[in-house]
Each structure stands twice: as structure tokens, then as C-alpha cells.
């Protein structure tokens, strides 16, 4: 009991700026770095920047989904509907555009609006009807899957326009960097916006909701609105991911299969606490990139693609176990010299 925060704060504000990582962020950055080194060693394509740019382009939809999923998880929920939402977005776009270039803009807006609407419904049912988000979004996933199946009879019809597909596969000439895929630019814009949002008051309040809802409510916060916002953002970003995937992977009724779990794995890998209250959005995106890099690496090493889901399963369990055990262990190690006990003080 020697230092006062007032003093400590002043010292920190002084010249010694150092990057500060959110709790639990460091491991994913180490993992990502190792994977990128692994890629550089293994694959000849990763000798130059274009290889990494291609990786980033492939990873962009998952990273965007992970950013959306992050908002929901950090505020204490789950969004299982995003995979089905991606499928629905692609199928709807293909059917409505049906090769007609002039319909592109309208349909893009419509898909975004659809994602927003689905998020709104998820959020309203969760906050107003008090159904756990796990159940709400699981139900939404089934509803969307069923609706897509009913509407397409299992085989999606129509085709996307070239304009629509540009977002997912096209690129643009950027000074200094050369050809940069549109999807990478969109990803970066979203990532920067999300990071800034999470530094602001609303973002911090969102994390606090995941940590202690009652405390936020008794501080005058609008808990329901904050959670609703998280679902809306998740739905909207899932629609963006759908637009990129439609262009990149083409039209199918399976395009979004399993993406919800992949996004959750990515977020957890990024050190975000399941149940909410801790984690950084940049780390969640880094988790998604790590996952994509890992699959690429396994592919290069000749490991069967069939193993992907097994690997993903191991990762999600290991990451949660690490957060539960490892995190506690680190804290204990760090605190032992100063404190006598990690038990909560008696009230």
C-alpha cells in the first residue's frame, strides 16, 4: 500500500508510452506469429507479400464474423445464427440479382438490411422476452436454414452479378501496396472502426455489461440497448461476410455451414472470455486470422481437410481451458510475491 493511483496515473501519462495489451491478448499474437513463420518456412507462396495478402483475403469473411461475434460474446451472449445468416444472404442475393447487373446496389443494401433485421430480432427476443441468447440464436439458425431450404428446394437458383462478386474477389490498385483485394480493405475499415468503438464509452460499457450487468444498470446504463446493439452489429457484419463470401466462394446452400462455430472458436482463441467481460476485438480478429493460417498450414503439410473440424474442436476446448486454468495460474504467479492469498476477502 504505497502508491496512489493519482501518482501512478501521472507517471504513466509521462513520456514512457508503451503499448498496452488487453488481458489475455498476448497468447494469440504469439500463436499468430508462429503460424506465419511456419507458413513462410513451409510454403513457397509465402516468400512475398502477395501470399500473405491472399491469406488475408481468404480470412477476411471469418475475421469480420469474428468481430461481430466478439460484440455479442463480450457482452455476455452467443450468436449461433451467423452461419445460417451468411447462407441466407448469399442465396437471397443470387436469386434476386439473377445476373442482372443493375440490381447490384439495391440487393447489397437489402442483404445488409436483412442482416440488421435478423440481429434486431435476436437482440429483442433476448432482452425483452428474456430467452437466453444461446437458445434464441440457435432457433434463428434453424429458422433461417429451414427458410432457405424451403425457398430453394435445396438447390439455390439465380446468379450473382459481376459487380456483386467484385467485393469478394476483385482488387484495387493502392499506391505503394499495389493490388489490394477489396475484401482486405473492407476488413481493415471494419477492424479500425471496431477498435475505435471499443475504446470509446459505449464499447467500454458493453464489456462492463458482460462483466456485471447489475452494476451497469445501477450506474444508469441501458443494459438492454447495449446488448441489442451487439446483436445488431453481429447480424450486420454477418451480412457483410455473406457479400464477401458470395463473391469469393460462389453460390451454394452450404456456404455458411459451420461458420458460427468457427467464429466462436476464433473469438475464444483471441482470449475473449466466454460469458463476457474481458477481451479485445483486435485479438478476436487475430484469432480468426490464426485459425485460417493454421488451416492453410495444415493444408500445405498435406493434412487432410477432413481434420479441420477436429482441430477446431481441440482448439476451442484448449483455449477455454487455458483461459480458466492458465489465466488463473498466471495471476497467482504474478501475485504471490505481493500478496498472501488469492482468496476473496471475507465480507
Amino acid at each position, binding site marked *: 500500500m504505497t502508491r496512489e493511483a493519482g501518482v501512478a496515473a501521472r507517471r504513466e501519462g509521462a513520456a514512457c508510452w508503451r503499448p498496452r495489451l488487453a488481458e489475455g491478448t498476448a497468447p494469440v499474437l504469439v500463436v499468430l506469429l508462429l503460424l506465419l513463420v511456419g507458413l513462410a518456412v513451409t510454403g513457397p507462396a509465402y516468400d512475398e507479400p502477395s501470399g500473405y495478402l491472399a491469406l488475408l483475403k481468404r480470412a477476411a469473411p471469418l475475421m469480420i464474423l469474428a468481430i461481430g461475434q466478439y460484440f455479442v460474446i463480450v457482452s455476455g451472449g452467443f450468436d449461433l445464427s451467423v452461419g445460417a445468416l451468411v447462407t441466407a444472404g448469399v442465396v437471397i442475393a443470387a436469386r434476386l440479382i439473377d445476373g442482372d447487373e443493375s440490381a447490384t446496389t439495391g440487393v447489397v443494401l437489402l442483404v445488409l438490411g436483412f442482416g440488421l433485421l435478423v440481429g434486431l430480432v435476436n437482440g429483442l427476443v433476448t432482452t425483452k422476452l428474456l430467452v437466453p441468447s444461446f437458445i434464441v440464436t440457435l432457433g434463428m439458425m434453424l429458422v433461417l436454414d429451414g427458410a432457405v431450404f424451403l425457398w430453394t428446394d435445396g438447390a439455390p437458383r439465380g446468379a450473382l452479378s459481376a459487380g456483386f462478386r467484385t467485393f469478394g474477389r476483385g482488387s484495387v490498385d493502392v499506391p505503394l501496396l499495389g493490388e489490394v483485394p477489396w475484401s482486405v480493405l473492407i476488413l481493415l475499415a471494419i477492424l479500425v472502426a471496431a477498435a475505435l468503438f471499443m475504446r470509446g464509452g459505449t464499447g467500454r460499457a458493453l464489456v462492463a455489461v458482460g462483466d456485471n450487468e447489475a452494476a451497469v444498470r445501477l450506474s*444508469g446504463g441501458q443494459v438492454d440497448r447495449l446488448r441489442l446493439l451487439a446483436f445488431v452489429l453481429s447480424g450486420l457484419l454477418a451480412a457483410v461476410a455473406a457479400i464477401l463470401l458470395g463473391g469469393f466462394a460462389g453460390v451454394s446452400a452450404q456456404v455458411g455451414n459451420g461458420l458460427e462455430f468457427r467464429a466462436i472458436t476464433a473469438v475464444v482463441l483471441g482470449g475473449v472470455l466466454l460469458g463476457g467481460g474481458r477481451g479485445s476485438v483486435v485479438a478476436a480478429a487475430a484469432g480468426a486470422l490464426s485459425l485460417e493460417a493454421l488451416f492453410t498450414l495444415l493444408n500445405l503439410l498435406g493434412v487432410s481437410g477432413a481434420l479441420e473440424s477436429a482441430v477446431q474442436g481441440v482448439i476451442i476446448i484448449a483455449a477455454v481451458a487455458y483461459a480458466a486454468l492458465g489465466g488463473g495460474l498466471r495471476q497467482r504467479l504474478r501475485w504471490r510475491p505481493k500478496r498472501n492469498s488469492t482468496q476473496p*476477502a471475507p465480507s
Partner: protein
Amino acid sequence: MTPGPATRVRLRGITKSFLGVPVLHGVDLDLRGGEVHAVMGENGAGKSTLLKVLAGVHRPDGGTVEVDGTEVSFAGPTDAQRAGIAIIHQEFTLLPHRTVAENVYLGREPVRRMQVDRRRMVADTRALLDWLGEDGIAPTDVVASLSVAQRQVVEIVKALSTDARVLGMDEPTAALADHEVELLYDLVRRLRERGIAILYVSHRMREVFDLSDRITVLKDGRFVTCAPTRELTSEDLVRHMVGRDLGEYYPDRARPGDLGPVRLALRGAGNDRVRDLTFEVRAGEIVGLAGLQGSGRSAVARAVFGVEPFTRGVLEVDGTPRRVARPRTAVRLGIALVTEDRKGDGLALRQSVRDNTLLVRRAALRGARARARSDLPALLGMVAVVARGEHQEVRFLSGGNQQKVVLAKWLAVAPKVLVVDEPTRGIDVGAKRAVHELLRDLARRGVAVLMISSELPELIGMSDRILVMHDGALAGELPAGASEGAVMALATGHGLAEAVA
């Protein structure tokens, strides 16, 4: 104090801290076979912690524990049990849908031919019940059908079945109805006759004088005295328990000239929990709200803050009638509430000192006022939080520092009316004093403070006026410096009759 031949447990110099807050500083205690040894002290004196050290729940940071002359170190409650020490906790640990015998032997059922030997279980349980002279309970009774007092007996039998020779009892009468207390007394006396050593933790004076052979008094985690009960009077005991310390000095009260306009006024306000509340709190004064647990003190706080709003009557802020239906409205009107449950609904524990301090601003305000943060060091300096830095998560702070962060988050929105519910619960003496001074300082700056506290000395020491609640309504108002007796007389509803006596 030389240990007698029958000394079963000897504690010497026991120290224990939680997250840097010392709770026990070098406590000594001897426990003899066949004695009831009471441990007394105020809330937070360290009674329960001492008991938990004995039970192996907490490991002492320093000092020694000896059982029957051998030094022991318990890694957990099981070790203590093996050494013959058992604790009867305030909360019962019985499975309600099983029988008495099944509960007594839970997890240690006697086995015969690969089967649970029910007959032996029942017979052994009956033997123990007989030994205690409890003939009202059958080993085959289902626990759910027993009274609370009988369940307590089962707990004790369960402890005895592990060959416990030392029993710790933590506030054993807390859950009992008045007529059941006598039954417990009998039981304790019988246990004593049979040579069991009993450590009896309580803060009820009468019980301790009725039952105990010796009394050890703790204060703020320190050993004060240990004496045979018959050599002590209740006045002695109170003097030992209250002692003289920092807590006795409170900041100067408001002078008549310090008082400003009425900030908060209730006129006939009420809801499901409270009724007919009419009072005012002026700028510059601290009004104490006293009452027993459940008298509606906290309900008033929650209603003023819009958590469970008033449904009748009028609430005025600065002379204007307002409808405060939710906390957000209250915050925007300049009302702040420091809740009694700091960890449950006061702080987001995994967030940093900084994020918690700015939480109210960010959550309840809009625009530039919500974004302001340049005054953060000043806010934290004002409450003198001790932390590694503003980015440390608040769960790692001591209770006192956590409470200071709660106060800082409200100072960040410069409230006009501050309602504090148990503002010093579970924090150490130094932090208590800091909180007291801060509250008085806020009052001097024109904040109207409504303070709830179960600690009467604190409430009386801090308040410029005291409102006493009884059974959901105001029982009366007392001036600054009223006696504890006067407050209790109103709070217990005995009113004048008691006050005269």
C-alpha cells in the same frame, strides 16, 4: 497463561490477510476439553476467520496450531476433521431428501458385502443420538421433516460421528426461533459434560453469558483479552469489544450555517416495502437512516434511486416533484447510490479502475460529458485509491480500495444527492476513516448525504440527524449524537417504554 492438562487446541500468534488486508494479527487461543469457550467481537473483528483457520478452511499466514500438544498444519478441512475438529456452519450442509442416518454418514457409508450397511448406519446414528440424549429424532427420519433446531442436532451428530472432540459453532442461534434456543443451550451443555471442547462464536451477549466458561475478545483482528466468564461483567465485555481506536473519531459535524436548501424531499412516499415516508435532506448535511435488518432502510435507498420505485407519495429533487422510475433517471437528476453489495452490483470486477470510475459517466450521460476523462487522476486522487495504476482490474484491490472506486465513479458525475448503503462494510479501519472523511467533505461541498449503516457507532458518529425506521415506516427522528439505546429503542419498536427503562 499456561495450558492446563486438558488443553486440546492451542493457537499462537495466528495471522491472516486477505488480498493485503490483515484480518488477524497474532491471535492466541487455548481451548480445553469440556469447556465452552466463547469468541466475541464486533463485525469484522476476525471471529469467523479464526474459526475457519481452526477448521482448516483458511491457512494461517503465520503462527502455530497445536492439537493435543502436537503442532499441525491443515491443508484443508479434511485434515482438521482427521485431527478431531469439526465446525457447525451457519448454513446447513444437509441433503433435505435423505434420512438422518444417510446424512450423518454421507460419503463414508459403512460397507458390508459390497453393500451399504444400512442397519449399522442406523444403529450407530441412534447410539450417537442417545449419547446426546436426543430422543425426538429417529435415524430414519427424512431431514426435510425436521425443524431447524433438529437439523442443527443432526449437523452436530454428523460432526461427532467423525470422532470430533473439538466443535466450532459459528453463530449457532442465528437460524433458530426463540423457543429453539433453549434446546440448543441444553445440547451445548450436554456436549460439554461429555468432554467436548466447544469454540462458540457469537456476538450475542446473553448467549455468551448463559453458556460459556471463558471468553476471548477480538477487536480488529487483535487479541484483546481472555478471561473466565464469571469474572466479567457485560460492561467489561462491551468496553473490551469497542475499545478505543480510529473508528471512534469522526469528522466534525455540520454547523447550522453550513446547511443549504432542501435537496431531497419525500412526502408520504411508499411502495410495497415502505410506507408514509416524509423527510427532507438538505445540502450540506448527513442524515443517518437507522433500523434493524429488514426494517426497510435499503428499500428506501432503492426506491429513491428508482430500482424499486415509490408507487405512492411525492419525491422532490431541489423542490421539483419527480418521478424516478429507473436508475438512469435518478442519475440524470443528480442522485447517486452506493449499494451495500459492492461486488454484486457496485463494480464490474474484471474491468479496470479507470473503466469503473468512468462507468456512470459513460453509461448514463451523453455527448462531451460522457466522454470527459481528463479529470480521472483528480477523481482517483480525491478518494485516494491505492492501486498499481488505473489499468489494474478492480477485483485485485482490497475491499476498502474497491469502495473508494465506487465512490469515485459517483464523484465523476458530481451528484447532488448521495445515498450510501453500508459504505464501510467489510473494509479495514484506515479505509473506513477515509470514507467517513470523504462523505463529510462531500457534504461540506453541498451534497445532501443519506447514510445507511448497521454499525450504530458509525451512524451516530457521522450523522447530523438520525431517522430511525421500524417495520417499513419511520419510527422517529433523533438529533446528532443520540445514544445507541435511543436508536435501538425506536428501531425495535419498543419506543418510550424501553427508553424509560
